[in-house]
């Protein structure tokens, strides 16, 4: 798909979708949204980029191998459960903290780190599959 219109529009679409995916991820705790759906939107963004510029460009832009990203997410999700050992609550209990950064109270929780982990797992694993399918199409 090497049309001029698509190649011009693709970077903007990708950037917008990535931004939106993070928005959906962070919105997920109290409203519809979350790691899985956010991750899928991000994968769609990478897939669009891949269709426009070819798979090698996406792989270079990602820098890390997609499966390494998935592994990182898995580690994050698992460790946000392990943290509850220190507080003598069951595995995967939600732990909350509200540190004040520059006068603004930010709610941080293990629920959120778990969700970010899910986001990374989805981004890594599905991007890896999507890219390998796109790869074959060219070759």
């Amino acid at each position, binding site marked *: 798909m090497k049309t001029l219109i698509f190649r011009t529009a693709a970077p903007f679409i990708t950037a917008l979708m990535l931004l939106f995916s993070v928005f959906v991820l962070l919105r997920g705790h*109290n*409203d*519809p949204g979350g790691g*899985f759906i956010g991750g899928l939107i991000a994968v769609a963004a990478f897939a669009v980029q891949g269709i426009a510029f070819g798979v090698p460009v996406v792989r270079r832009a990602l820098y890390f191998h997609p499966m390494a990203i998935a592994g990182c997410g898995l580690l994050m999700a698992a460790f946000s459960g392990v943290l509850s050992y220190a507080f003598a609550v069951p595995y995967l209990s939600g732990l909350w903290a509200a540190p004040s950064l520059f006068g603004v109270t930010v709610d941080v929780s293990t629920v959120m780190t778990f969700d970010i982990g899910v986001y990374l797992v989805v981004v890594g*694993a*599905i991007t890896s*599959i*999507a890219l*390998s*399918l796109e790869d*074959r199409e060219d070759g």
Partner: protein
Amino acid sequence: MEAVLSLLVALFFAAGIYLMLSRHLIRILLGIVLFGNAVNLLIFTNGRLTRGTPPIVPPDLMTSAGPVANPLPQALILTAIVISFSFFSFLLVVVYRAYQDLGTDDTDEMRVAEPADEAPPPMGY
């Protein structure tokens, strides 16, 4: 409402199973998609339907004001969707590879692992 959805589930199952009985892998794949969605709909209907009340707590309250739809089937379905999605995407890659490497999507012709002309073991020596 449950009766209508039950009919829809039955329709999905019928179409899914019909497609899965085909010899061609691509139809089997489409059948699997329909089959999976039929199951999701089935779980959803099994959780009893409550219309128009999403199980979301309003921002200014600590619990929801009135009765809400059962959130558990929705959580189960979400899990099932995630799993069947990853399963399906894996299957897609494998089937595509099978089509490229074996040169066919007809399951009757896929005899590489179990050759039809394999000799029986020797009867003695």
